[in-house]
């Protein structure tokens, strides 16, 4: 397994957000964690990317490296795990190209950066059209493309995606997930958390269901799609 999480505990002050969850992701896999708002999906991703501290006893291991030993920027630059955060968080005062270049801040492979940038522009032609525009002037869909492209350029061993469908029109959602498939085809492992459970389960190979900070179900996504509890709670059927 590429990513191993054991007994992950996270609290915000006195409020416990994750109750010792454990899961693992294989290299090249698309894994999704679905759950309701506030169940702990984003917290899980933030813990992996070291944006928030986790409690002693938590184990996070990536390709045999202890993630807990890395700071947030080193998780990206040394381990190659990128995090596309909820709400995109693109830098609105920078141009599209600057957003992409900044994501390569710690990278030294200048030639590969150019190749990656070209690849991102091929994947999202809209970004290339608007490459000199300030990112703040992009539409929501374009901003999401930029957030994903930027994430890919910052590190592509694994991508942590937090609600990439949020705020997108249905047609754009499908385009976005097609693009994510392309990224996965190049060998990037994807860990996706989504409120849009149907979309996520159709996209991923394996899934977990999180409720109140605990993982309650696990399985191949085609089984989860047929699971009566999942259907009732998350698929509205």
């Amino acid at each position, binding site marked *: 397994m590429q990513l191993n999480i054991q007994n992950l505990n996270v609290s915000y002050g006195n409020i416990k957000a994750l109750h010792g969850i454990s899961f693992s992701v294989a290299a090249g896999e698309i894994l999704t964690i679905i759950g309701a708002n506030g169940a702990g999906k984003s917290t899980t991703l933030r813990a992996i990317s070291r*944006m928030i501290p986790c409690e002693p006893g938590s184990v996070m291991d990536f390709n045999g490296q202890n993630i807990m030993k890395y700071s947030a*920027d*080193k998780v990206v630059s040394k381990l190659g795990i990128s995090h596309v955060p*909820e709400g995109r*968080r693109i830098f*609105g*005062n920078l141009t599209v190209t600057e957003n992409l270049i*900044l994501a390569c*801040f*710690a990278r030294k492979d200048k030639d590969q950066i150019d190749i990656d940038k070209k690849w991102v522009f091929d994947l999202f032609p809209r970004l290339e059209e608007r490459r000199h525009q300030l990112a703040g002037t992009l539409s929501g869909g374009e901003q999401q493309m930029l957030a994903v492209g930027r994430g890919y350029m910052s590190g592509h061993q694994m991508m942590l995606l937090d609600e990439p469908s949020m705020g997108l029109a249905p047609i754009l959602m499908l385009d976005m997930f097609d693009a994510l498939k392309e990224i996965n085809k190049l060998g990037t492992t994807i860990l996706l958390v989504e409120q849009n459970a149907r979309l996520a389960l159709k996209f991923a190979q394996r899934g977990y269901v999180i409720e109140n900070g605990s993982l309650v179900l696990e399985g191949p996504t085609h089984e989860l799609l047929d699971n009566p509890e999942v259907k009732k709670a998350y698929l509205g059927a």
Partner: protein
Amino acid sequence: MEPLIESFNYILQNIINALQRGSFYAVISIGYSMVYGVLMLFNFAHGDIFMVGTYIGFGIATVFLAVLTGLVPPPVIFLATVVVTMFLASWIGVFVEVAGYRPLRQAPRASAAITGLMIGIIFETGILIMLGAKRLSFPPLMETVNYHIGGIYITNVKAMIIIISLLLMLALHAFIQKTKWGMAMRAMSYDFLAVPLMGVSINIIAPLTFAVGAGLAAVAGILYGQAYPILDPYMGVLLGWKAFVAAILGGRGSIKGAALAGYLLGFIEIFVATVFPSTLRDFIAYSIILIILTFRPRGFFGMEHSTKLRL
């Protein structure tokens, strides 16, 4: 005709004086503005960083003048003094960030603010202890030459102060716009929580921001020492506050705004003093600033930034 030309010359003369004064405010306020923009922090030690920078410049200038005079032409000594002082003073900025502010990054903003004030007091008294209360005199780095152009007087020192300040600001602008470090600073001023996700270490960008501000302030100190040669450990206090006013008036994180506001401050002060008694200068000048801020509370170029405070 004659009185008209005279009053025209009088105004022109004052414009030059205002440009000189404004240059100091502009260059110093940029350091305030950058730290505020990038780290959402008022570095109240900045005026005293300027003071320490001036003392460093004083030391370097004294040594270089003693050792190099006769060996190399004066402009080279001047340039060497500027470069070496800038380098040394930037480490003062790094020190202030690492020792003063970094441990308080998660602390309430008020704690960070008083940290700045305390570091300032430590610098002032530290210099007092090391060098005593006697006032030192900054050695002139070039012979003053008076030029009489039309009806106005300008010295080479004044011209140099104005030109070097402008060049510094242009260089900084290029650094912010063109380099990846500048890009990271701009990104931080927009959304500093998302910056580490780009593989950028805040522990590099934050001290760099302080270093640039301190380096600029130190050059301003050398230039200031050429115009007003008396050094005193409290020289940074009033100047620091005025630079702070300029930084706020310019708008959060706007270098252009801080520079512009610095010059505006210089102009208002000089021209108020041409009309009113000089004891009223600051009283009237800062009343004007207060009125401007009332109508433009975000300053001239108050920058947009992400309002999300948690990732």
